[in-house]
């Protein structure tokens, strides 16, 4: 075969491969709903990682050689080690906004002050590329999208307190739990407490130049009072080797033991954004 000399490829295969990949990516993205509906941390984590493997085109998400290849490629493309995608957390807290404590079933929040270390290099490279190609940078910049996933789990630090039961309800449009049969659901119900998602949230960086920002992820506090260890995973939906995980400890008090001023619940929460 001498396709390299003649530039000949069979488009009936390769063209359909492109369409297949687009469809498969959408299904992969959609399947995250399934993991979220059964609150399965292992499944959600594996799904996000699979998405990255499929997007980047690698055989492993964690193989040192693959990570090294990815990092060196990023560094050479984006002007050095600062071009390797990385998030730095200036502060990490879990609290109930406007309250002194976290009470059971509160709408509490994980607040992260994040710095995107690669923002400058990415922006510079993008603008340079546009200049080379004679494309207005605004067009290319507006197409930018960087996804990070926040996965939150909670474990009561008192081993005598039994784990909460898996509480799943059908969704309005049939996504999620209704797709599982009883037999399958059982496997998720039997999962350890620390493998159960409290919340799963994607945050998208639509501006490549954004250097820093405050991220607020709202989630329901545990139903039982006690001292909790919150496991937080920040996983990239695009890049290899730049995921973070950390734990935060917080006390959750019984709602009945604290006095709260009734507030009108609101679904709309003002975004707290900050551009660099």
């Amino acid at each position: 075969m001498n396709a390299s000399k003649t530039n000949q490829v069979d488009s009936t295969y390769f063209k359909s491969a492109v369409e297949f990949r687009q469809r498969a990516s959408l299904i992969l993205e959609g399947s995250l709903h399934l993991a979220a509906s059964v609150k399965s941390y292992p499944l959600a984590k594996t799904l996000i990682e699979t998405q990255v493997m499929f997007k980047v085109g690698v055989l492993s998400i964690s193989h040192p050689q693959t990570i090294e290849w990815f990092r060196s490629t990023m560094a050479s493309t984006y002007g050095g080690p600062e071009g390797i995608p990385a998030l730095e957390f200036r502060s990490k807290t879990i609290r109930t906004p406007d309250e002194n404590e976290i009470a059971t079933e509160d709408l509490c929040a994980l607040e992260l002050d994040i710095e995107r270390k690669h923002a400058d290099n990415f922006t510079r490279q993008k603008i340079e590329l546009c200049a080379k190609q004679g494309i207005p940078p605004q067009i290319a910049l507006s197409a930018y999208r960087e996804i990070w996933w926040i996965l939150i789990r909670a474990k009561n630090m008192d081993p005598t307190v039994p784990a909460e039961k898996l509480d799943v309800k059908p969704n309005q449009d049939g996504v999620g739990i209704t797709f599982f049969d009883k037999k399958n659901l059982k496997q998720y119900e039997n999962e350890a407490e620390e493998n159960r998602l409290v919340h799963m949230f994607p945050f998208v960086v639509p501006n490549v130049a954004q250097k820093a920002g405050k991220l607020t992820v709202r989630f329901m506090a545990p139903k039982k009072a006690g001292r909790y260890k919150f496991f937080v995973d920040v996983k990239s939906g695009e890049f290899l080797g730049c995921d973070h995980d950390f734990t935060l400890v917080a006390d959750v008090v019984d709602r009945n033991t604290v006095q709260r001023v009734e507030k009108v619940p609101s679904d709309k929460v003002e975004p707290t954004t900050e551009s660099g």
Partner: protein
Amino acid sequence: MATSSALPTALNTPTDPLSPFNSPEIKLDMMYLASHFLPTSTHYDILFFISTVPSLLIFAKDTMERADQLKKERIEFLKKQKKEKERRQVELTMFDTVLNEGGWADEDDNNNNNAKTNTPIDSVGEESDDNNKTLDSLEAIRQAKEAKIRAEKEKELLAKQVAEVTGKTSLAENLLLEDVDEGVLGRKWVELTLTQVGQWPPICFKKNPSLLQHTFPLEKKNRRHYTTALVTAMDHPAVMRTLCITAGRLNSQMLNTHTELGKSVIFFNVIYCINSVLCVDFYPLEKYSYYSYPFSIYFDFISECK
């Protein structure tokens, strides 16, 4: 940057009535995935099940049927083209023979014979007239031949223009296909290359042999009826196609830099980058410069530009 929305989870309560999850096709896919995903599923298990969701198998089956159809058309087209080429070659050879040998052998020979038998040999003037006549007829043949070639070319051009305007341009004329056209790389090449590096048959089977026992419905045509049989992944053409594409995706770095494809990739890359702003469906612009996207993306784009 961003803030999450309502409880219990943003993903768990989609309220958009236009959600793609309302489509029966996607619901079927999700049901299939929900019945196979486990908390212990590995990356390869997930890729196997994603690659074999009902909608993707239907898609693969359709594209395979279309590819088979195109292959038949292409073979037919090439046969016709070959015949036409041979016919023209014969005609040109005959024409050359006529011109080189001084006329259409049979007729002229007969004429000459007639002339020889019916006309006195010493009749020089008449012989000269005959020669002139022969030259005239040769000239007429030449002109007729040229006119014929011209007419054929015009006819071909017109047919081509009409086909283009009416959208009936045969893909078979332009497409290059593996196994039909020499040196064309396609699925077989991908499978062969993956086999050489131990990535084919799909490594998900090595990692989880239970996937080999998984069965899929396959429609088979008997004399009169269609019957559906349950077959394993290895025996299901559409499954193997989707698994091949997935394996190609995961090995794109190796495939892209393969020597047999090297030049093509560079060519496609250049074309793609020039036009990349139009590709909003894929990934941010700069990623094409570092991600090892398979050449197919580039190829796809070129075909759209045509």
